[in-house]
């Protein structure tokens, strides 16, 4: 360490440092034009001139390249210094009178006109460009000439091959003398950001996106200059922790595993290859993925809706559906991509919300396929309330008005009329496809793909690939949305866990902690660690000042500053300090507890402190990063945040984290395909499982079904499944049994079943609800009055029995959406379109002469089911669309049945005489109320069970330990029911595989003496964690089941007497922070 005087104050720095570096560190900014942190200083511009007193005399030196020595005295701000600098500026100003940065400097010294002869140069000959070019490993430019002719140039004034047009020279040039456009003949374009779909640029060293895991920058080797020339490495000099290692190589890591799960996803269809979409030619035609980025707050326009051509907010946007899907004419894909209708509606709705003016959003579609749970409602709302226009049409062409960049859409409507409409922006709803690389990977792994390049799976084995031990989930199996991808992911985990069950837990290492120190009788001894976070905090907030201030706060006995408080060596050090200083509260003033609290709490536990004796002050995310221009205010705010944290730290108490035991058994309610699948999934993983079925046999609705849409015989697979269930040693089947009572919580449920009047109680740790649903009994279309009007399931039964009445008819009419998608049941039953088309094809096979009509509203053969739809049309099945306000009518005259329907193409009513009418009847929930009440589970408006989160937790209930599968959740086909049932088993096994569950300490509790049993907290609790318990004196009091409590504190707010409160966030703690904040 060297000590010297800087502007009269003693400062310290390392030997070998230059004056400029040290002055910067101590906040005495010295102006410079030619200095660059990563380059050897050259002292070229002389602007950094300072006054140096060496004990005997005073002289002027350039601060950037003058090394420090002990005892020297430096003045950066004296009158003499400014006089010299003024002269330098004046000389530069005379040379370059029009360069903004020089003009600014001149203005700073009140120089209006230089005393010297003016030239019109814009290069100050600082040589920074030459030095950086050399650093890049290139040396393509140098200072040439002599005396007054000296200038920056290339050899022979020609750009050589050595110059890569990397632009480093242009980027460092202080005056703008070198311009990137002059160096390269190509249009200068930033590297397109992959995440922002090329709408924004990125650097060669970059964090892929804000939520990337790990959230660390990566170097793009194909762009980084170092990997081309071996030079540069400037980033290493800016990185304060030496984290950048250019010598790192790709590694091949070999892992020995027992199962593989493929979840590589999809790529969006690229419309570039097809001129018709105008995507390459017209800037305002974007893909739906690009539009997602445009809408995103972290996107290229910060969430402001604007179009690429001119940044103007569009007033009219069109979405074109099925781009790359449902079309075999232009080498796109024949399948339906399943998700585009829903995302287009979502984008239209959000765009309307984002738009500052009234936005006209129009969706051009063939069929709207909103078949998922609550999707139809969303569609109806978009249409009826938010005013999104839906236009059933075929797009003829897109062209552009070259002046305005508006787009002209030509389309044919349902009547076949050609229309034209102008939009300011067009979004292509692109489909999903398997990228080539994945096809190669699958071949390499010997995994069978189908004709659409998706992994081939079976209806009853929806996540198994053709190779044993390899499973698949998500869009690599078939295009699908988030909830079903999540279900399949858990289903794949379930299958993998079954084959690996013997190895479960064998690699787990238990960590031992020292015994917790009892701090209850100690006064708070608070230690505060203030983090610089490299320069992230320290570069803005005056950390030494903050630390000094913190020392003055009550209860604080120890304060230190760290470069990185989260680094491993600081953790080791922190542990020692806690022990050595006898700290009993620890505060880290650094970043956010959301990412780092757990790390520091772990260190506390290692040091023998309870993890709740910890608090953080977020001075990075809330101070230095967001007030970077206001250093003083950021410093003051940091002090405030620490003062608040100290105030709270005085009050926080150690909390126990009780453990509860887990009953390693499961109970599954419902013996259909879903229930059996969950049961087998759990039993195969080694968990004893009770299967409760209401009827006298297993099988559920599947008993009545014949074939899946892929042509598997259901009866055979079902038989096998029933047999396996009944013979499994770990499965106990109880038929003719109903649920009578249920109590308990995760890990410890007690369910009582009633079997022919006798009650039995089972203890178990998890529950799966798979009670199924039933077919709606229609009340229209002469159903029940005429024998020739059947429901889909009744048709299946008749087909099974090869009923001649069904197979010999001349005309068969299917009516879709019977009881679905109407005001009473505003949901789509999802399976009926596929089911009817499949039945139609079966009838055609039995009787090729039969005329078959399918009367529909939208054909919803999503995913690869689209192939069936195509096949049906190929075989001459006639599809006639109807709308809800003009439903078909069924008439009977004598023995003749006929259907009357409006034909939109012909524009008139037609009458079809029918021998058989099949009603595609809705799937309706069973009476789920009593079961829902017993387990305290929510039902949605339609009466189906409601999962914890529609997208991310589709098989769990908000109540822990209870799971959901099959059509009790929502109508779905067998393969999806099976995937969900396996997922439920997988999630349930997460609970069951634990010996004990650790309960969070920061939960609520009720002071029984103060509680008057009003039940307000019971109502307020969103997790059903509180119940009223009878006390001896006939009164009742609220009791918190800690295992269920999430610590939200709603009960404490609702409680009128103050009996309910919450550990770790109690009123006193919060009020102390409020008070400290305003102090």
């Amino acid at each position, binding site marked *: 360490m060297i000590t010297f005087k800087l502007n009269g104050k003693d400062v310290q720095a390392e030997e070998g440092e230059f004056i400029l570096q040290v002055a910067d560190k101590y906040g005495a900014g010295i102006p410079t034009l030619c200095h660059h942190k990563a380059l050897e200083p050259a002292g070229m511009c002389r602007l950094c001139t300072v006054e140096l007193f060496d004990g005997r005399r005073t002289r002027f030196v350039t601060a950037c390249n003058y090394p420090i020595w002990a005892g020297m005295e430096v003045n950066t701000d004296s009158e003499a210094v400014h006089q010299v600098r003024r002269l330098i500026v004046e000389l530069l100003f005379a040379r370059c009178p029009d360069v903004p940065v020089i003009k600014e400097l001149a203005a700073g010294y009140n120089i209006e006109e230089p005393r010297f002869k003016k030239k019109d140069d814009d290069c100050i000959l600082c040589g920074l460009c030459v030095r950086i070019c050399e650093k890049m490993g290139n040396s393509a430019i140098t200072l040439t000439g002599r005396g007054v002719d000296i200038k920056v140039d290339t050899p022979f004034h020609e750009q050589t091959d050595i110059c890569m047009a990397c632009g480093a020279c242009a980027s460092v040039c202080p005056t703008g003398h070198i311009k990137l456009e002059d160096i390269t003949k190509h249009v200068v374009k930033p590297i397109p950001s992959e995440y922002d779909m090329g709408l924004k640029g990125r650097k060669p060293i970059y964090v892929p996106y804000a939520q990337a895991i790990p959230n660390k920058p990566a170097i793009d080797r194909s762009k980084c200059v170092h990997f081309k020339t071996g030079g540069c490495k400037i980033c290493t000099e800016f990185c304060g922790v030496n984290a950048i290692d250019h010598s790192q190589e790709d590694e091949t890591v070999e892992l020995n595993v027992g199962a593989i799960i493929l979840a590589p996803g999809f790529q969006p269809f690229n419309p570039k290859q097809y001129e018709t979409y105008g995507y390459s030619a017209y800037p305002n035609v974007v893909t739906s993925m690009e539009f997602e980025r445009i809408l995103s*707050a*972290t996107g290229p326009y*910060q*969430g402001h809706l604007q179009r690429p051509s001119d940044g103007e907010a569009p007033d009219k946007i069109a979405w074109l559906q099925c781009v790359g899907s449902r079309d075999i004419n232009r080498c796109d894909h024949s399948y339906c991509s399943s998700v585009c209708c829903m995302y287009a509606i979502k984008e239209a709705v959000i765009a309307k919300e984002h738009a500052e003016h009234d936005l006209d959003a129009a969706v051009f579609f063939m069929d709207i396929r909103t078949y998922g749970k609550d999707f139809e409602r969303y569609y109806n709302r978009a249409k009826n309330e938010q005013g999104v226009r839906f236009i059933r049409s075929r797009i003829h062409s897109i062209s552009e008005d070259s002046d305005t960049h508006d787009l002209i859409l030509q389309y044919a409507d349902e009547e076949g009329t050609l229309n034209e409409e102008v939009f300011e922006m067009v979004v292509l709803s692109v489909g999903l496809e398997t990228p080539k690389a994945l096809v190669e990977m699958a071949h390499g792994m010997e995994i069978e793909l189908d004709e659409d390049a998706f992994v081939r799976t079976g209806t009853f084995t929806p996540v198994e690939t053709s190779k044993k031990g390899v499973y698949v989930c998500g869009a690599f199996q078939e295009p699908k949305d988030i909830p079903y991808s999540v279900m399949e992911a858990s289903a794949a985990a379930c299958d993998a866990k079954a084959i690996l069950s013997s190895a479960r837990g064998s690699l787990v290492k238990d960590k031992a902690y020292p015994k917790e120190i009892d701090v209850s009788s100690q006064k708070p001894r608070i230690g505060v660690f203030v983090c610089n976070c490299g320069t992230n905090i320290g570069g803005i907030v005056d950390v030494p000042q903050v630390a000094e201030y913190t020392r003055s706060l009550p209860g604080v006995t120890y304060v230190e500053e760290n470069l990185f408080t989260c680094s491993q060596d600081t953790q080791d050090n922190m542990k020692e300090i806690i022990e050595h200083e006898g700290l009993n509260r620890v505060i880290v003033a650094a970043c956010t507890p959301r990412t780092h609290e757990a790390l520091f709490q772990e260190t506390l536990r290692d040091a023998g402190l309870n993890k709740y004796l910890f608090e953080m002050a977020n001075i990075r995310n809330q101070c230095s990063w*967001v007030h970077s221009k206001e250093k003083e205010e950021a410093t003051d705010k940091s002090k405030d945040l620490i003062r608040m944290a100290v105030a709270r730290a005085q009050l926080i108490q150690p909390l126990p984290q009780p453990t509860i035991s887990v009953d390693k058994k499961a109970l599954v309610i419902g013996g259909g395909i879903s229930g059996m699948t969950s049961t087998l999934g759990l039993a195969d993983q080694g968990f004893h499982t009770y299967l409760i079925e209401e009827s006298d046999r297993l099988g559920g609705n599947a008993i009545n079904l014949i074939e899946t849409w892929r042509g598997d015989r259901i009866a055979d697979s079902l038989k096998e499944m029933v047999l396996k269930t009944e013979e499994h040693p770990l499965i106990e089947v109880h038929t003719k049994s109903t649920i009578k009572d249920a109590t308990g919580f995760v890990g410890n449920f007690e369910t009582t079943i009633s079997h022919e009047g006798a009650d039995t109680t089972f203890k178990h740790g998890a529950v799966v609800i798979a009670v199924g649903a039933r077919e709606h009994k229609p009340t229209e279309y002469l159903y029940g009055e005429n024998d020739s009007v059947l429901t889909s399931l009744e048709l299946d039964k008749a087909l099974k029995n090869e009923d001649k009445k069904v197979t010999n008819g001349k005309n068969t009419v299917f009516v879709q959406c019977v009881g679905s998608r109407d005001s009473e049941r505003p949901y789509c039953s999802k399976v009926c379109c596929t089911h009817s088309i499949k039945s139609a094809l079966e009838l055609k096979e039995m009787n090729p002469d039969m005329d078959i009509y399918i009367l529909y509203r939208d054909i919803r053969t999503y995913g690869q089911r689209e192939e069936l739809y195509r096949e049906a049309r190929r075989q001459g099945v006639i599809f006639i669309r109807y709308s809800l306000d003009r439903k078909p009518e069924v008439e009977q005259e004598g023995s003749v049945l006929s259907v009357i329907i409006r034909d939109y193409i012909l524009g008139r009513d037609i009458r079809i005489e029918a021998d058989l009418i099949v009603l595609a009847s809705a799937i309706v929930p069973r009476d789920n109320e009593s079961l829902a009440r017993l387990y305290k589970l929510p039902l949605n408006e339609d009466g189906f069970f409601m999962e914890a989160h529609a997208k991310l937790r589709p098989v769990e209930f908000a109540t822990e330990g209870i799971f959901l599968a099959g059509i009790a959740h929502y109508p779905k086909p067998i393969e999806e029911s099976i995937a969900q049932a396996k997922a439920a088993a997988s999630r349930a096994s997460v609970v069951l595989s634990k010996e004990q569950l650790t309960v969070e300490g920061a939960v609520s509790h009720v002071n029984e003496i103060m509680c008057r049993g009003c039940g307000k907290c019971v109502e307020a609790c969103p997790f059903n964690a509180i119940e009223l318990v009878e006390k001896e004196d006939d009164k009742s009091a609220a009791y918190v089941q800690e295992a269920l409590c999430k610590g939200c504190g709603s009960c404490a*707010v*609702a409680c009128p007497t103050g009996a309910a409160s919450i550990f770790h966030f109690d009123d006193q703690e919060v009020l102390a922070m409020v008070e400290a904040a305003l102090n």
Partner: protein
Amino acid sequence: MFEMTKELVKILGIDLGRLRLEWISSAEGTRFAEVAREFTEELKSLGPFTLKKAA
């Protein structure tokens, strides 16, 4: 609960413009900054708050 708080604030004669409820999801960093800016501007126009003034 927020309604009740608002009621109380009103009873005390505190300008309701000084109390604000916002729903900001974890993805809405921009929104957070926006709210901070807006609210600060609003409070600047309302001027410093004193309980005396309220009573």
